[in-house]
């Protein structure tokens, strides 16, 4: 591996990401499964680093999942997105930041389609006016939330409480990055680092002390496949693809995986559980899995946020081995508490995958 070669490619795909004033749209999957990640995106970028990020209570799903499950026509998906643009325009913003990768891909694709076929944009404007009496300006800039955090990675590093370094050996942690397919596979120039060697996540991991490992199936999809997961009969597809990735990364003994897509951390986490149940196989050390984190969770850990406030307890794969490696203190007794430290029942345990 020639590291300089990658740097050369990264240099070709640097995006100009505006520094401030963003209209934020949330992700369906992340709100359900990684609720604290979105909370800490705002807590870090807005509250701690002082960027202006606005959220309207009136925004909705972008309907991207339905669009990619083919349950709605293209014009419906476009008009739902146009409504988000209208909310942004009404709130006085020009830069849009999405929490979801598929939203990011959708917004980007829609703007690109409108550029090529202006008559379609006109039609959608008409639809939106008839349906909602709203008008919109197109965003000047669409970013994914990981782009913004990539841009702020230096500021986060300056405030770091912890480094992504193995406390006992002083070696950088081995980090696998997994980029959501819709981040840059359709439009390589819209992603930091392009489609082949994206550096949006590796840039964060390296700034915070880790070392990113490349493995043969790095670019492969996690296997979500929309209808291939949502329909129970099809989930073998999803499982098989994740399995392929884990088999490929296993020899590199990764300490953690970071992701920027809503679905990927869920699948990379839960399919490890399923593989352990079906085949008794685990990919971490000593019967544990490989912890899968969102970039906000990783940033939160680096900044010294309590792991249970970050929501690391809602992962199926135990994160404690990672916390121990870095030397992040945590209180096992607080892991499964409810609101205001209320004691509630604790989750059941998997048969095979080791948890604390």
């Amino acid at each position: 591996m020639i590291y300089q070669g990658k740097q050369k490619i990264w240099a070709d795909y640097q995006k100009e990401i505006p520094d401030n004033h963003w209209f934020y749209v949330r992700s369906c999957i992340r709100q359900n499964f990684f609720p604290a990640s979105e909370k800490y995106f705002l807590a870090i970028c807005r509250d701690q680093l002082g960027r202006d990020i606005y959220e309207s209570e009136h925004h909705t799903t972008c309907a991207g999942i339905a669009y990619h499950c083919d349950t709605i026509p293209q014009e419906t998906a476009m008009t739902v997105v146009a409504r988000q643009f209208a909310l942004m325009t009404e709130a006085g913003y020009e830069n849009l930041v999405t929490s979801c990768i598929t939203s990011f891909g959708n917004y980007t694709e829609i703007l690109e389609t409108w550029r090529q076929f202006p008559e379609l944009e006109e039609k959608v404007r008409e639809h939106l006016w008839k349906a909602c009496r709203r008008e919109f300006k197109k965003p000047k800039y669409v970013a994914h939330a990981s782009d913004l955090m990539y841009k702020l990675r230096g500021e986060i590093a300056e405030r770091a409480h912890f480094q992504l370094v193995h406390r006992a050996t002083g070696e950088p942690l081995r980090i696998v990055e997994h980029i959501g397919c819709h981040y840059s596979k359709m439009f390589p120039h819209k992603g930091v680092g392009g489609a082949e060697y994206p550096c949006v996540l590796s840039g964060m991991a390296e700034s915070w002390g880790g070392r990113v490992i490349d493995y043969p199936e790095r670019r492969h999809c996690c296997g979500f496949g929309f209808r291939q997961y949502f329909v129970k009969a099809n989930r073998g597809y999803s499982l098989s693809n994740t399995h392929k990735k884990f088999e490929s990364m296993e020899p590199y003994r990764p300490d953690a995986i970071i992701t920027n897509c809503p679905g990927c951390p869920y699948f990379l986490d839960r399919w490890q559980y399923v593989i352990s149940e079906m085949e008794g196989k685990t990919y971490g050390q000593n019967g544990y899995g490989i912890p899968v984190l969102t970039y906000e969770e990783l940033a939160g850990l680096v900044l010294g946020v309590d792991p249970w406030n970050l929501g690391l307890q809602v992962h199926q794969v135990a994160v404690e081995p990672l916390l121990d490696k870095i030397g992040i203190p945590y209180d096992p007794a607080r892991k499964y508490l409810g609101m205001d430290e209320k004691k509630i029942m604790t989750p059941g345990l998997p048969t095979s995958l080791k948890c604390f």
Partner: protein
Amino acid sequence: MVNRNPVIAVIGAGIAGLEAARQLADLGYSPVLIEKEPAVGGHVAQWNRLFPDMTPAAEVIDALKKQTAKIRTLLGTEIASINRLKDGFSLVLTDGTSLLCQAVLFATGFQLFNAAKKEEYGYGIYDRVITNRDLEAWFNTRKDMRIKQPEAVGFVHCVGSRDLKAGNTQCSKVCCITAIKQAIEIKEEFPDAEVYCFYMDLRLFGKKYEDFYIKAQRDYGIHFIRGRVSEVGEAIDGRVVVKAEDTLNGKPVKVTLDLLVLMAGIVCNPDAQHYARQVGVSVDDDGFLKSRDNIAAITESSRPGVFFAGACTGAKTIPETLAEARSAALNIHHYFNKRK
């Protein structure tokens, strides 16, 4: 003005320039070879052996050198600017001198496609990925740490050719046969190695090329897989994993290789485009210089006194280039005869 001994600036002293200059000198003209590199011979001088007879490239170059030894040759010299005059051209050279001439012959050749641009193949990132040029250099020098007793070697055809995304939709014409030649040479060097060629179409149009292909199949057992390589990854031991579809079988294939050779294609030399604009000849939409007519007048530009030879108008083989060089010399001769 009738000049008994017109001066012709020949831009580029690769095989096209050398051969044309030789012919022009024989016809009684005064060619001046202008070469930006410190030596003549261009790309061919970097090559080791040539298809289909495995002729050493040095033989071709040495013969041309001998034949052009008396011709004025400016090495390590580039052209700062070219101006059109009433009866010819004035060239300002980077050595500070200027040159007045009555005709200009573009023998500017080609540039090898920068294989690093096909990011998914990992040239410049993965150690075991090299280009056709790197392999020729190894045949010449035997110096390349990356090549030692490979057990499996792959060749990727059409790297930067026939590729809209790489900005070159043209076929580079010579890569198919070059891949077969190099695959055979690898087999001769390492008889136990498995050798795979990944191709989209095999375009073996030239004299004895098809025979060469049959030889590669029957005598050397080289595997030909019809499928464009989609991506290359690096395994933990540093070898590379190549993925393609075996389209004749309709299934994805993957193979782990010790060495992967990218057949970088042929694109126009950007210097040629730059000079072309200065003398007022056009660049075609394939990026190469535009001939007056692609069938009847390939060596003529649309501007009087400006001629083309070789790969500046498109990918060419060596015999084609030499033939064009002679043809261009004859065109120039007729051009001056008509002006008498």
